[in-house]
């Protein structure tokens, strides 16, 4: 019991320190999160000779005899987007909600825009990373203090948002780990919801096993790698949103 009180005190102190560097004044040098829906732009090419030296692009391959040409449909990436974005940022009590199985394109777009143009702060919650048992997606009771601290912080800083990264150790297959990491991020989000956070203020991403905390093949490294990390997304700046 004493320990709990002490750790709660410690958390309060940490939170107080963090408060002074609140996200209304993003630290210099923080990374801007690029839009979640960037355009490929010049990646589009119809000249097969251009493929080899242009950066960040696709490389057309030369047709061979046994392949027939085919044009598919889809959403072209260079379709102009609706320009009426960025002026009316959602308020915290008006976060775009997501209803299961009933997500209109408009709702999807509003959700996406909510996370656009926010500075990314990886240090704020670095000490609050939570860990998982082997092949498990359950949040440990011992990690609930971390979860509560993050929820409390975000409930004070209502213009901030959260990115939750799910990670795995390397002892799962690649696609399996992608799903497992996503499920871990979702479990962390559910726990944050129970701790009083509006779940629509957080987005999740899975990295599977490709970004280990410790790049080694032993049980200690594996235990450290099975985790969810929390990245603070600062206040949306109108300029950043408009620029995208």
């Amino acid at each position, binding site marked *: 019991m004493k320990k709990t009180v002490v750790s709660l005190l410690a958390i309060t102190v940490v939170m107080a320190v963090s408060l002074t560097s609140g996200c209304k004044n993003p630290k210099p040098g923080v990374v801007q999160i690029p*839009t979640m829906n960037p355009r490929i732009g010049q990646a*589009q090419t119809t000249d097969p000779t251009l493929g080899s030296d242009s950066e960040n692009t696709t490389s057309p391959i030369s047709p061979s005899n046994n*392949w027939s040409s085919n044009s598919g449909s*889809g*959403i072209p990436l260079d379709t102009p987007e609706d320009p009426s974005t960025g002026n009316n940022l959602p308020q915290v009590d008006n976060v775009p909600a997501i209803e299961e199985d009933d*997500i209109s394109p408009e709702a999807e777009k509003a959700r996406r825009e909510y996370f656009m143009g926010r500075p990314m702060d990886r240090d704020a919650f670095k000490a609050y990373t939570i860990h998982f048992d082997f092949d498990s997606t359950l949040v440990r009771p011992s990690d609930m203090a971390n979860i509560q601290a993050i929820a409390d912080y975000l409930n004070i800083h209502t213009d901030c948002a959260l990115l939750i990264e799910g990670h795995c150790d390397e002892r*799962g297959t*690649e696609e399996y780990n992608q*799903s497992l990491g*996503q499920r871990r991020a979702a479990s962390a989000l559910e726990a944050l919801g129970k701790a009083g956070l509006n779940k629509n203020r957080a987005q999740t991403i899975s990295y599977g096993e490709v970004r280990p905390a410790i790049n080694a093949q032993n049980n200690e490294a594996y235990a450290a790698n099975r985790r969810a990390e929390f990245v603070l997304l600062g206040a949306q700046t109108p300029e950043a949103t408009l620029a995208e």
Partner: protein
Amino acid sequence: MINIKKRFIRLLNPALALVLGILLIPLHSFAQESSGELQITRTATMTSAPIPIHVSGLAGEAFKILKFDLEISGCDLVSSEKALYIAQASSDSGITGKLTDQTGEITFFHRSYKNGTDRALVHAYAADIIKVITGQDAIFNQKIAYCINTDLDKNEIFISDFDGHNPQQVTRDGSLIRALTWGPDKSSLFYCSYRALNPDIYKQELYTGKRTIIANYLGLNTSPSVSPDGTQIAMIISRSGSPDLYVADIDGSNLKRLTKTQADESSPCWSPDGKYICYSSRASGSAKLYIISPDGGTPKRIITSGVGSATEPNWSPDGKYIAFTTTTRRSFQICIVPAEGGMVEVLAEGEAPCWAPNSRTLIFHRKKDKKSSLVMLDVPTKKTKTITSIAGNASQACWSR
């Protein structure tokens, strides 16, 4: 007269071995059940003896290519006395190749191959040999797509001949690719990429490089799998929280959720008749295989007796088997199970298996000493070949089919 009879018996040998193998299956399975214990065992689900063949007349690279092609198709290269077939070739101008029986009395074909690289000509000759011996179309003119790692969390897509030669780079994103698969008509690739800082599903047309987004919902969008008729796509999407199986039209429209579990689903693949989607789910606690109709309904478990977990299913083009990866705490193992479920056959160390169009060759990757290589396996003869022509760390290989 006696000669003909002798030849007939010799030619029948592989067939006899196959018949014996099939006869042994029920006995073997019975022994398993009565012992009351299920363990990883090697059951004779798909077994045949290698076919002995003698090759002469080619040297250097041409010989190496022919040897690789024949061995990965279930042949053993032997001396002329032990051979059932004799392949005799010369490479003066182009390749002239012949296939006879052991005595040289029956000539199956005698052809000259011209107008192509030596590599292509030898592949064509090897394909004719395999057609005579197995009755099947060879896989030597198929392409494979795969990823080469440039960093721990970065890789790029390449396409090459089936044996890793003539590689062409397809992406240059400096990002992470997952779940690479071929689109209909072999003219496009579908994959998950983190290039926009979220795992989204893209279609990339190979001749133009044109790339379109198929699914980029918030959260995970991965594991695209195109239906056999090319009209639909199965995917793993987490827009409702937990990663679930979805199906949509091939362009990503008309998205429909098929599973509603609290657990994570992964790696869908289609049955060749398009009636089912097989996927891996942790709904029962550990990863198991399930099938579900693309129209929805209740998922049905595919029993994989003998192994713990089952991920990355891949349905054979003839519909008979599902290949998958099982995970132990030490390693990954490539397995096959009859498509209706049953006793698992553990084949080799590796992960992410994909069937070739001939329904007998698997390609997968194997990590050894921090190096990841592509490996091919001829399932009936259990012969494996590591593709050494690919320099970097390769993974996620899939056949064009």
